[in-house]
């Protein structure tokens, strides 16, 4: 690594094209700058830097929007005799106009001259207009590598193809589509690759940036899957022991179990949102029918289950609430299962021990209340959907209907739950829902959690 070479990138464009949004996405800094649909929200040049190898190496400059490029161009033309484009810009910057009404434009141009590469942000929903041509002409005078970035390409109104054609006709071919609303890591990669192609001396730096971003993205996916796996293990292993004969107690306890699972799901949503800190929560929440950090449809409403093609299960028996079932004794660890575990003394011992205790409990009239299998499937389906939306590739493949959770199919439908979840069923001590402070056999629980995580990752694709 040759010391501290830094790359300076200026984000420029017409007002209101999403320059600050692009910066927020690239920096994963959701609070950077100020964003609104009004023009001229950013009125200063604000800088931030991307960390590469833990050090700030790529500086990004957010500039005010170019608003009055026609006048600007006319003024620059006045300085025609001053020499080349850069000289003309300098002359303009020294003039009175640069401190008057065109102050913002002057800020942009000052920054442009001080940068290695320009990202010219375009709202792809707009047609190519005279002002765009004026802006590109002005920026062309600065003689900096310029990469047009098409924003809002995921919108139905996008005119991406027309833009590419127009830009090609004025010699701009390295056009990158980067939708700041529907984030796609591949777009981000292409953006950096375009910069890489234009700035050969910074190839290594950008390559490192690309690789670090890719690794971070994979880590993000894995953590998201682990977060949901954690929820599922907690819900699957949760059990509450009640006397079968006591209907009132059964009702109270199963309602309590329901409430615990609801709270746990909310925690999972919160964790996922925190994990994807850089994404706009509002956008995702609105599309996914999440309100105040919880899904609008109750987890234990039979209607919700039906929407995912699941039946309400065995819950209603003997006063237990929806989504809560009674664990019959044969559902426990059977001797056959112990044999498959490698019928050694240890396994046999714990089997006999467990089985014996359960038998004893059963004889005393106790049963275990548990979360229904279909509720587990529903939990998996909803949270996978959320991750999907958070990770979303910027394509129109996810229609509004799917996002509302109507057409989605729950995982493991009509099939057994994955082995890890079935294992969790036999370990009430793994659940943080029913035993929050007792020592949890951490390593064993983690093994099941990671097995489930892999399964979920496959479903995320």
């Amino acid at each position, binding site marked *: 690594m040759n010391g501290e070479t830094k790359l300076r990138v200026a984000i420029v464009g017409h*007002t*209101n094209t999403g320059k600050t949004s692009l910066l927020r996405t*690239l*920096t*994963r*800094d959701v609070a950077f700058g100020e964003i*609104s*649909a009004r*023009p*001229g929200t950013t*009125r*200063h*040049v*604000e*800088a*931030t*830097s991307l960390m590469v190898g833990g050090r*700030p190496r790529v500086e990004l*400059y957010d500039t005010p929007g170019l*608003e009055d490029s*026609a*006048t600007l161009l006319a003024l620059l033309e006045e300085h025609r005799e001053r020499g080349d484009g850069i000289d003309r810009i300098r002359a303009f910057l020294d003039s009175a106009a640069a401190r*008057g009404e065109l102050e*913002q434009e002057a*800020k942009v141009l*000052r*920054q442009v001259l001080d940068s290695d590469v320009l990202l010219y942000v375009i709202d792809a*929903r707009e*047609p190519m*207009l*005279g002002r765009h*041509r*004026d802006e590109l002409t002005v920026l062309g005078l600065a003689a900096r590598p310029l990469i047009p970035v098409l924003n809002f390409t995921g919108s139905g*109104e996008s005119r991406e193809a027309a833009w590419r054609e127009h830009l090609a006709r004025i010699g701009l071919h390295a056009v990158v589509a980067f939708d700041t609303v529907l984030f796609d890591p591949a777009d981000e990669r292409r953006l950096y690759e375009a910069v890489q192609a234009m700035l050969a001396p910074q190839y290594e730096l950008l390559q490192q940036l690309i690789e670090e971003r890719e690794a971070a993205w994979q*880590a993000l996916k894995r*953590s998201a899957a*682990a977060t949901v796996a*954690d929820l599922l293990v907690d819900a699957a292993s949760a059990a509450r022991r009640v006397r079968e004969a006591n209907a009132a107690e059964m009702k109270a306890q199963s309602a309590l179990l329901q409430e615990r699972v609801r709270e746990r799901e909310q925690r999972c949503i919160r*964790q996922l949102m*925190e*994990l994807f*800190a*850089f994404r706009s929560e509002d956008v995702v929440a609105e599309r996914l029918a999440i309100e105040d950090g919880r899904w609008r449809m109750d987890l234990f409403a039979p209607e919700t289950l039906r929407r995912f093609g699941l039946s309400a299960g065995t819950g209603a028996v003997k006063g237990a609430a929806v989504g809560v079932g009674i664990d019959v004794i044969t559902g426990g660890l059977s001797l056959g299962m112990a044999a498959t575990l*490698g019928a050694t*003394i*240890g*396994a046999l*011992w*714990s089997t006999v*021990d*467990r089985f014996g205790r359960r038998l004893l409990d059963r004889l005393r009239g106790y049963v275990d209340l548990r979360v229904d299998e279909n509720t587990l499937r529903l939990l998996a389906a909803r949270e996978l959907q959320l991750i999907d939306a958070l990770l979303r590739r910027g394509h129109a493949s996810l229609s509004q209907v799917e996002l509302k959770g109507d057409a989605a199919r729950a995982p493991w439908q009509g099939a057994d739950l994955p082995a890890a979840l079935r294992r969790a069923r036999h370990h009430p001590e793994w659940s*943080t829902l029913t035993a*929050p*402070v007792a*020592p949890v*056999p*951490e*390593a064993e629980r*983690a*093994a099941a959690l990671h097995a489930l995580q892999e399964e979920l990752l496959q479903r995320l694709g």
Partner: protein
Amino acid sequence: MADASAQRVTTPFQRRLLAEAWRRIEESGGSQADVTHAELAAVAQGGTFETRVLNRAVTLAQGADLPRALDALQQAMRRAAWALVLLGALVGAAAARSTLNPDHAGLVNFYWVLVALLGVHTLALLLWLVSLPFFLSGGHLPPTPLRAPFEALARTLASTVAGNAQRTAQSAWMSVLGSGALGRWGLSALLHAFWLAALGGMLAVTLLMLSARQFDFVWETTILPDEAFITLTERLQELPARLGLGSLDRETIQASRRAADRPPPPGARRGWSALLVGSLVAYGMLPRAALLGISLLMLRHSRGRYRLDLELPGYARLRPRLMPASRRIGIVDADTGTLGAKPGESRAARLPIARETAVLGIEIDPPATGWPPALAAGARDLGIAADRADLDSALQRLKALQDHPLSLLVVCSLTASPDRGMARVLRDCRAAHHGPIALLLTQRARMALRLDEKGCREREEDWRRIAAAAGFDAEHILLLDLDDAEELRRFLLARDEGQDAGGRE
């Protein structure tokens, strides 16, 4: 205080335990600590994600005095282990005492004594070895009976500490120390230490008894051939002989067979005693000591290999904060505030299009209902200006029409940004035309697709503001979506009936 606790956290393993405890505390919502300072410090110190998580957690844990709790726990576990060792020694001593009962001194069956002293130990050892494959594969050991004392210890400890955080922390530590490889080898070390102590106790009492009492060791059999015992004894003493404890020759062994007519030779006593002691050491203490050593080594190894599970939500959520993708530099070219302007308030409109009208579109797509809009019978079409040149030529044509009494209708899209460039266009239109002028803002539906309710409201306000600044009358600004045929039809109907033709539905 802080320095003292900082000193206590020395090993990476302890740091990880603190981090794990802190994760549990945070997940159970038990921490109101201000994390900002610790996180900034962790980011400043740099390093891998795990390093940062550890630095953050150790700082926070020290604030909550957790290192002391960890210290207390480790001491308690050490005390419990020593108590177990002491118990083992006592049990062993008692077993030896009851086996080599001084009341029955005299003729003693050597093999009877040997089985009484080493039998249970050997059986337990075999059991342990048989379950070893399962044990190593990470099966669900320890079984409940062995977990029970562990959990009891956890409960006892939990009841001794004050504060929820400490309780949660201890439970977290018990979880880590009592499960996985750490739990397996820790338990295994305890088990072997117990047996080693028991055998040690046995050895001590045996030596004491052998010193102070006289035992005539004999062997006897009813149905087995004598030769079997002689060979067995010879084999048995091979290992102790290497330790210098076993020097019985064939004759002495033969002579020690129990017989009614003669006592065993007096010279055999030392030999048999040496074999007994040698067997205790070679078959009891040595294997147990070796296994204890291995277990302790493996425990140490497991501690070294113990890593935080950074994919768990409790840690993963910290990644954006501890491994920031960017660092802000700040404002480098500040706003001087010369362009500040506040949006004004105005209401909808009546168009001055009773007379002949010229229509000019600015940077819009041709509306779905056609261009020019069917608002006035004899509308003059000035076209849609896409750039400065278009606008200039349109305004030139407007000038040429100036002798007619004419009103100008400028059509703009709400999807466009009402910026200074647009304000200039409106100003230029106003300047170029001396008759009545009106602004029609179309594509409200499209705007609504892009902006939320607040955004739409602001956008409309901003348009009214720049139009007003350009010299448009507030009541001559009309919102009418030309893409919507139904809206246009209703507008025309309302106007023809001479009613109020406010554009807002």
